[in-house]
């Protein structure tokens, strides 16, 4: 195609009768974005490359099939976490991650800075009980979630320096 003087009509009839799947996906995404709360994607830290340092020229985009942001998966997640009592006076962290989408959480949770005590998955949700390592300041939790065949990683960084044994006091999630 080069510059020329003629307009070109192309076969792309405006689709009025039925909503295309592309449009349907955008409308779904719109709904998710519209109800985003402060705890949404920002806290869960799934946002992709826009968070890169400003001097990383040409940051690689994630593979399309694995990008949770493309369907707004991060926006459908909610998270709660608190300190609970463990054995022999120890303290543990109980995390509850859920989605209002149809997703499957993998029970194989990976941790750094903590030991996994147990996981329990239910419909569209996972509960993780973990025991921070002695002296650890932060714990990284890595959870795999499958949304319609698209497997994405949720990474949570927890500040575990100051345990508060109160179910009403949420644990601090810091940006990854």
């Amino acid at each position, binding site marked *: *195609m*080069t*510059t*020329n003087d003629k*307009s*070109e*009509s*192309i076969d*792309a*009839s*405006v*689709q009025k009768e039925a909503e*295309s799947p*592309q449009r349907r996906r*955008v*409308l779904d*995404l*719109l709904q*998710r*974005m*519209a109800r*985003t709360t402060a705890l*949404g*994607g920002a806290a869960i*830290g799934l*946002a*992709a*490359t826009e*968070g*890169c*340092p*400003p*001097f*990383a*020229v*040409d*940051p*690689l*985009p994630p*593979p*399309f*099939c*694995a990008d949770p*942001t*493309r369907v707004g998966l*991060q926006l459908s997640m909610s998270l709660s976490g608190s300190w609970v009592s463990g054995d022999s006076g120890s303290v543990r962290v109980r995390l509850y991650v859920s989605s209002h989408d149809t997703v499957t959480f*993998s029970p*194989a949770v*990976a*941790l*750094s800075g903590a030991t996994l005590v147990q996981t329990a998955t239910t419909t569209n949700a996972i509960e993780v009980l973990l025991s921070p390592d002695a002296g650890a300041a932060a714990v*990284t939790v*890595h959870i*795999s979630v499958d949304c319609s065949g698209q*497997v*994405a*990683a949720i*990474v949570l960084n927890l500040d575990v320096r100051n345990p508060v044994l109160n179910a009403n006091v949420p644990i601090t999630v810091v*940006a*990854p």
Partner: protein
Amino acid sequence: MATVALVGPEIEENLSLRYLAAALSRAGEQVEIVPFNGPEAFRSTLQRLVGVGGPPAVVAISLAFQWRASECLAVAVALRSAGYRGHITAGGHFGTFAAAELLRDFPELDSICRHEAEETLVELAHAVRDGRPLAGIHGLALRESGGVVLTPLRAPPDLACLPWPTRFGEPVQCLGHRIAALVGSRGCYARCAFCCIAAWHEQTLPGKRFRLRPVDDVADEMAFLVHGRCIDTFIFHDDNFFLPSPTRSLERIEALADALDARGVGRIATVVKARPPDVTREVFGAMQRRLGLARVYLGIETDAKQGLQTLGRQVAQEQNHAAMGILAELGVYACFNLLIFDPDTTLDSLTANLAFMREHGDSPCNFGRVELYAGTPLLERMQREGRCTGDYLGWDYSIAEPRVQRIFELATRCFFPRNFAAGALANRLMSTRFDVEMCRHFRPDVFQSAWLERAKALSRALSSDSVRGLERIIDFSGADAVRSAQDDFVARLSVKLRATEAAVGAGAAELEHEVQRAADSEREDTHPFVPATLMTAEEFR
């Protein structure tokens, strides 16, 4: 609100929006850039568009990035739902190539500005304001009589005549040095099969694909940025800073340096992008001596023979290695990305790229998969071969060799946080090293060579760990494991990868802090003239 609102990412100075803003301003339109940096900004972006001051007559949405297209289209839909009745247009690489499909599926859009749109958007804004028909404007895609009409393409704008991109707000800084993005050219002389930039420029400039700004115009803009906005660090976003001939590259570098000298521009730092064949001792020696080269992003992309062919790189493995060797010899900071997965990747290809990562571990790098972008020869090939899944909003594919596809899937799960998540360490290390290089460049009085060695060691540690992790995945992929075994493997490997990231990340933070502290000490004023307020180009003139 202005008469034209430009909506798009503004994580750093978005040159495409700012060139459009400058063209509109010069043509007498009131223009405002409304940043939309991600889903979290959705509501605030909408509020700004329909909020105080009345809505703009035209909303122009950037659809440059295919992976962000859905979010941006959602803005258009939400605007209409909120009662906006003005003209909504869109543009950018993706918008151009997918114009017909977008107008078919999204009646909220009134038009698409195709290709470089400085002139098209100005004519569109004037026509909307005056209530004139749009069909006579070249470079548009319009809905008409139930179908879509592409008006004739226009010749790309003369770069010598375009107003400089609008500058406003406080520039970003590194170690107290103000940074500006700019371009000295548009397009790239190469024609890689996966690159939408080459495909885009091939449509309007067949066979050439790149244009240069006159050296004096670039030097004038840089002098304004130095004297009017206290900039001393320039990130050239040229798709490729260099010309196909080293002799011509050298001539342009020397001419630009002379022109900057003549305008009283003092010590500066530059960041550029290059292809491996562009790297010669003479050219990069001149970049160091004359233009203060602080970093080159080297487009390696792949070091596998098969990969070089699939991606249409027209580069030989020997050129990749030679380029890295010359840059190391000159002491130039180079970083690169590797597309280790492509539609034809074999185990041998993977092995070749892992060897490259290991051999050049001192340089920060990231790795991933080649994606299928609208308009590219690679997408066309995959569609011809019936190998694409998905649709125009995002194409996907499986790697031909099933075992390599398994490796890709496992690698993506294990390495997502390291390579792609917000704050991904692979990207952060590029920034850490940049801090060190900026200190080396601007503050040799406080610079410690040990910092450079530490930055290299951090990159080496991460690259080596990535290679080891990928090798474990390759070993595991030999058995066709059931899903639960894969999950278990991913979890176990992820723990190790996250632990390395924690250690390397802590080392990077410590190094960044030390460099920052040293640079903050007894800072010398590097600017010959510091105005009380930052200037616009008009004020400077």
